[in-house]
């Protein structure tokens, strides 16, 4: 599977989630990457692809490989589910390319969130406990969504209101570059954490390093720290 490229494959058939009955562990870490691919990301998209592929390679070798399931959503003015939740070992190579002409940040966040919740519910119904990590990576503010930020916020608040979810669901907005609106977007959507990163290769690597640590912390039942 490693020689497959995300751009070669459309996994958007019922999101192609991994069958819960085929999961051999009793607890998983489900990571959702919601990635902005609007034209403005051209300056750092190659670095992002490299860093994400390094992340995938590292995770495939790690002791949590059998517990880590990854889903990928990309968005410009449209939202596209590139992959439902699949074991990290089966994750194709990342190859995001700038496309479209807008940024449907709210729609994409809502899509990622709903996918995460649906699959989480399916897993828990079959006895698998889950930790969910929602990573939203964008360099700009919303200008194309049909859904409002409040819909994202309401959905997240419902999730986090449950004690069972409060310590097993983490959402992070990565604001890449210098746009001043990331804080407002985080607040409007109710995303728990905001991390601002630069567009240099080193900064992108630092962001993916944080994601790696977050995944490892979630697997070890440890809190995620910024």
């Amino acid at each position, binding site marked *: 599977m490693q020689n497959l490229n995300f751009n070669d494959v459309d996994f958007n058939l019922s999101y192609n989630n991994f069958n819960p*009955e*085929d*999961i*051999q*562990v*009793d*607890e998983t870490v489900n990571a959702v990457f919601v990635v902005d691919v609007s034209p403005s990301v051209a300056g750092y998209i190659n670095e992002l692809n490299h860093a994400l592929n390094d992340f995938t390679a590292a995770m495939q070798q790690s002791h949590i490989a059998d517990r880590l399931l990854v889903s990928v959503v990309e968005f410009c003015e449209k939202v596209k589910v590139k992959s439902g939740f699949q074991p990290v070992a089966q994750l194709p190579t990342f190859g995001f390319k700038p496309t479209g002409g807008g940024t449907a940040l709210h729609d994409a966040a809502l899509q990622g969130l709903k996918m995460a919740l649906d699959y989480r519910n399916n897993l*828990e119904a*079959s*006895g*698998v*406990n889950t930790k969910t990590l929602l990573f939203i990576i964008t360099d700009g503010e919303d200008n194309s969504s049909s859904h409002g930020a409040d819909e994202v916020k309401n959905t997240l608040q419902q999730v986090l209101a449950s004690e*069972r979810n409060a310590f097993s669901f983490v959402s992070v907005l990565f604001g890449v570059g210098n746009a001043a609106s990331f804080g407002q977007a985080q607040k409007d959507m109710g995303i728990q954490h905001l991390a601002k990163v630069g567009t240099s290769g080193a900064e992108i690597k630092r962001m993916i390093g944080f994601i790696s640590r977050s995944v490892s912390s979630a697997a070890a039942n440890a809190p995620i720290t910024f």
Partner: protein
Amino acid sequence: MLPAALIFKMQMKIYTTVQRGFEHRTYCEDAAGFWQPLPGVTVAAVSDGCSGGCNSHFASALTVKIIGKIVNSMLPQMPSSASGTGGFILSRYMQELLTVKQALCLETGEILATLLLAVVYHNALWIAALGDGVIAIDGEITEINHQNTPDYPAYHLHQSANEQTSYLFAQVCEQTAFTHFAIATDGVLSFTTAQHISAVPAGNDLVLPYLLNDNSLQTTQSMLARKCNLLHSKYGLLPADDVAVVKIINQINS
């Protein structure tokens, strides 16, 4: 055509889980293990460290490690029956436990742990219980309860061979064939809702058949852990005491 060794290994589906009870804040004092030293031979063990002892988590882990060591080194002397193999392991266990106790200068209180040992030899099943626990064979569940009169193997280390033999084989069951069985520490009797910390365990009618007899989720290696998760998410049931379970499904007979 599969090799005979592989067929025998595929014949047994083995599931295990160890869960920390909510009354134990730091350590889980139960342990479980299984081994397949030869095609057609499976050995499984669960152990419950005595909470009143010292380092009880160590005592149960030590018990399972010693059984594993014996099983993995007994091939040249291995008897050709389930009872013979089980007897060999138990008597060697007492010797090894004494050796380790002396080598590590351990107090008796540091090695107090129960042992439920199961040996499958082709289709035959042999189980011995040294202390409290639960045994389920083909749907029939037996609770072994010493009514709070603990009788750990460590208390018998300095006895004569005859005295040890009568202790080791006092609680043994044998079957010539089986479809599935489970051995569990007595923590499996302690499932209750977490809010009722001192409540009488109310869920045994539900929990024991579900965990020990029911074969659903058998396609996943984490069957027992997932069932524990479901008992919690659906019914709010958690074990108050630590639990260790080994369940084996004999695919040829089932």
